[in-house]
């Protein structure tokens, strides 16, 4: 036998298919009279040795000539070769039990979420009693990151949605000659629904994921454990400031997004239908009752608290490994966006008589 019996050389497709046939031919003939001479091999590594060993049917051939190095390789391969114990297949019972575990896991999520909310209440009371010792520095930092840095993106998205909506509505309204109603349509839909939901979805994707990732990384690097050992309450220092910042930033961002969307809508209706900005602004006051604004702000505060809580919840559940961090972040964003839309639907049902 000749050549390079190393993984790199064996893996070349041409060499491999040729070798496979030769090996097959060699091993299928009479084995007693064969002499395997490896002394002329340029190189052999463990993969090469394994290949030979497997080809020999995992036993030593009758006649074999090797160099001592090759002999050592083959002996090691021979010693360690064994069939892999495959991971056991799941039986029907196990699948059934796995389903049960899933249900329990959901229950576990709910219990932990409830515990988080309870702890938050206690922390709020503690803050009310000793406002001077509150985590104000953390709060202002989060407020900046969640609120101020989100201004450009929310404005851009809001503005474009306003333009698109106004454009679509103008097409329809023109057919009925009801051009002026665009103010009512845009005003109600943007202020009452789209502004809060749009801002909440953007912030859930942007800051909800960031919250989970921050807390999750702290979990992976054992910082949370370190806090506990140092006697620092994680609820008070990690969860409370984030929830407070979110509860304050979210309504502000909602107002900001709604304003941007209304600006976009106003410009588009001016261009499309000649509804002047002057008229738009004056008609808006009559078209939209102030209670809509209150509803929107209240709703978005709830959204903010929800997003922060869901983010913290998934962050604290991250297990100390990197894969779990990725899963937690994904789950956090998906859950918080779903929650926002569910709660929005709930608000729509409960407050159907308000402001319409």
């Amino acid at each position: 036998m000749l050549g390079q019996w190393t993984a790199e050389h064996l893996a070349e497709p041409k060499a491999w298919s040729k070798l496979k046939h030769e090996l097959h031919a060699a091993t299928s003939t009479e084995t007693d009279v064969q002499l395997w001479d490896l002394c002329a091999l340029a190189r052999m590594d463990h993969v090469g040795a394994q290949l030979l060993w497997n080809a020999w049917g995992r036993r030593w051939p009758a006649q074999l000539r090797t160099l001592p190095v090759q002999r050592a390789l083959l002996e090691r391969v021979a010693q360690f070769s064994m069939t892999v114990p495959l991971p056991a297949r799941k039986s029907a019972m196990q699948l059934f039990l796995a389903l049960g575990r899933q249900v329990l896991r959901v229950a576990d999520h709910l219990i932990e979420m409830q515990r988080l909310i309870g702890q938050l209440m206690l922390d709020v009371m503690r803050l009310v009693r000793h406002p001077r010792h509150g985590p104000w520095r953390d709060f202002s930092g989060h407020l900046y990151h969640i609120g101020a840095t989100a201004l450009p993106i929310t404005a851009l998205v809001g503005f474009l949605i306003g333009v698109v909506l106004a454009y679509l509505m103008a097409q329809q309204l023109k057919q009925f000659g009801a051009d002026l109603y665009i103010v009512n349509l845009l005003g109600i839909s943007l202020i009452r629904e789209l502004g809060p939901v749009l801002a909440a979805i953007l912030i859930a994707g942007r800051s909800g994921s960031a919250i989970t990732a921050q807390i999750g990384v702290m979990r992976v690097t054992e910082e949370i454990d370190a806090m506990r050992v140092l006697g620092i309450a994680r609820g008070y220092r990690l969860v409370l400031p984030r929830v407070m910042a979110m509860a304050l930033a979210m309504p502000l961002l909602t107002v900001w997004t709604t304003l941007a969307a209304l600006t976009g809508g106003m410009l588009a209706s001016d261009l499309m239908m000649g509804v002047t900005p002057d008229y738009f602004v004056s008609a808006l006051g009559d078209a939209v009752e102030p209670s809509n604004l209150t509803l929107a702000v209240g709703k978005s505060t709830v959204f903010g608290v929800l997003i922060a809580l869901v983010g913290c919840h998934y962050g604290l559940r991250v297990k100390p490994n990197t894969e779990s961090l990725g899963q937690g972040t994904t789950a956090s964003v998906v859950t918080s966006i779903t929650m926002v839309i569910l709660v929005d639907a709930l608000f729509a049902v409960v407050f159907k008589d308000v402001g319409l």
Partner: protein
Amino acid sequence: MSTTGPVVEIEKLTSVFRFAGQEVVVHKDLDLRIDAGELLSIVGGSGSGKTVLLRQILGLETPRAGRITVQGRPASQLGDEGAASRVGMLFQHGALFSAFSVLDNIAFPLRELGTLPDELVRDAALVKLQMVGMEPKQAHQMPANLSGGMIKRVALARSLIMDPPLLLLDEPTAGLDPDRADDFCDLLRSLHRELGLTVVMVTHDLDTLFALSTRVAVLAEQKVVVSGLPREVMNFPNRFVQSYFLGKRGLRARALLQEPPVAV
């Protein structure tokens, strides 16, 4: 298996890092030559650029100036296809792929070649797994469930899967208990002897250093101040070298030197 001449050649290496607007010179005109079959330990104080040097040999970082040649090719080309057959690296924290099981981690480089049958790949990975002293029944565990020592073993098995002639180790015994560390040393020594590996190791562990190395290179003052046999290096008249080896810990570990390293 026995290529002669330098495996790694470093000439006039200069590395500079920027920290907060300030430039920090880590290496300046550093020269180092590593011959085939050596077991070289690189030592130096914290921040003397040991790990950076390893990363530069691997081509993970590009030096500001200078030339690094690994097996006759520039280090920057080392990461090309088939890298696993040229060089193995044991990262400080293992760097196992967290999404794969132990066996899949080890088999990954072989499987990526695409031609070898699955059975052969699995057998080869299983042999490597046992070579580093792990049980076959641990093959299907996930890295997240392994202890630090086991992670290092699996990572070593992965770096050895294609029997590369050059093996780089970053703090191989850090975070292992003394017993495990000794096992690890024995393992490395036997691998070095049997596979004819060239091993480059960064370590702070003087026991490991004296037990294994055939040569020690000391990084200080931005270059290799001295390199040679452990006992020669120890007596080199340099402030850093003296305090490093002849501090209390050094003296204790020195007792090991009475027996010369087995790996030659």
